[in-house]
């Protein structure tokens, strides 16, 4: 039985996406199926409450506290739940650690899977055809477009999030930052470093 969808009902709606979403929202609201106040609440959650600061706080703690890091690597979900970083698109998270030998990069070639509770909603480039198609085949060329160059003897490991496991990269902390406080370290962890398309910058 071939599964090709005959129904392309969306083409009955206005083609302008802003009007299309408005038409769907109105139809659902009018029939009592969605509550506009719930929509505002969802938007507020991802606009203001959940974002890369969550992931950065975990990374900074892992850098300064070896026991915490060991627990994070071996018992990831228990640690994240304790800090409240659990929820939709973050039910099964693994942390992968960068070393001088291996640099990790995360992608979802099939759609846009991303660890929402730790990093928020993914940026446009993460969801783009350019990133999804190329990073598994030419990761070094892709990294160069982010201004990142790795040593020749570092191997790259690209994690394609094809199931419900979500990956967070634990970046390397350059020596220049040793001795910084946890709070100072939170400020230097970029979102891209936790995806693997960035490195931790030099200390000023």
């Amino acid at each position, binding site marked *: *039985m071939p*599964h090709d*969808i005959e*129904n392309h*009902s*969306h083409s*009955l*709606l206005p083609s302008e*996406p*802003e009007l*299309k*979403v*408005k*038409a*769907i929202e*109105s139809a659902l609201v*009018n*029939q*009592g*199926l*969605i*509550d506009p106040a*719930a*929509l*505002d609440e*969802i*938007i507020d*959650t*991802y*606009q203001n409450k959940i974002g890369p600061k969550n992931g950065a706080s975990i990374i900074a703690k892992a850098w300064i506290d070896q026991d915490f890091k060991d627990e994070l690597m071996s018992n990831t979900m228990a640690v994240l739940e304790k800090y409240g970083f*659990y*929820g*939709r698109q973050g*039910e*099964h998270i693994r942390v992968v650690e960068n070393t001088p030998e291996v640099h990790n990069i995360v992608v979802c070639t*099939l*759609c846009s899977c991303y660890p929402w509770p730790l990093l928020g909603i993914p*940026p*446009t480039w993460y969801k783009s*055809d350019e*990133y*999804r*198609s*190329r990073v*598994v*085949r*030419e990761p070094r060329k892709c990294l160069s477009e*982010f*201004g990142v160059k790795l040593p020749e003897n570092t*191997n790259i490991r*690209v994690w*394609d999030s*094809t*199931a*419900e*496991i979500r990956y967070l990269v634990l970046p390397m902390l350059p020596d220049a930052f040793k001795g910084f406080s946890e709070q100072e370290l939170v400020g230097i962890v*970029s*979102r*891209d470093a936790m995806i693997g398309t*960035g490195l931790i910058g030099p200390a000023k």
Partner: protein
Amino acid sequence: MTRVHDMGGRYGDGKINPDLGKEDVFKAKWHARALAVTLASGSLKKWNLDMSRHARECLPPKEYATFSYYEKWISALANLLVEKGVINSDKFLNSVINDHPLSKRKLKAADVSEVLGKGAPTSRKIERAPRFIVGQNVKTKRAENSFISGGHTRLPRYAEKSEGIIEIWHGAHVFPDTHAHNLGEQPEHLYTVSFLSSELWQNPENPGDTVCVDIWESYLEPFDD
């Protein structure tokens, strides 16, 4: 054959446009609305995550390639709402206020934080022991749904019929190939399999690089050197 969304390894796409963390979470107001309407509609429980992914994948290639990200979401949502019988297609343009039988499932503002915070874990306990162990050599089968021609599957085409090594065993997880098509969860053991770039690509950038893919047990067969 696979579908248009399965683009890993494809040639012809241009340069990435990094935002270096500066982009707004939602670049336009309607993007935020599109995300929220899609998530809230999920609470009606007429479809699951695998069905909504498949609905996006089933957009015709010409639309998939030209639609923006959230345009794909809302177009697939409109198709799903009609396909699953939630809305009659004429109601979109001529909606009337009535008591919809699903309205009792409506997501309330007060429940949003609990619903998002609870998530929807896909791990399941099963009796069957895992067929493979960490370190074992395996080979992937063809990247096609084996129940339904053109159906949903999560093995990317670039990793089909390729030899790799089991890196991680994740326990059993809901099987998307059945779950997307009303054939039940049928949980299977899930593994991370690593592939050398030289196994996947004719001219790898660096033969020591690897790609790790999360792969359900029935996508794999044992492989001995």
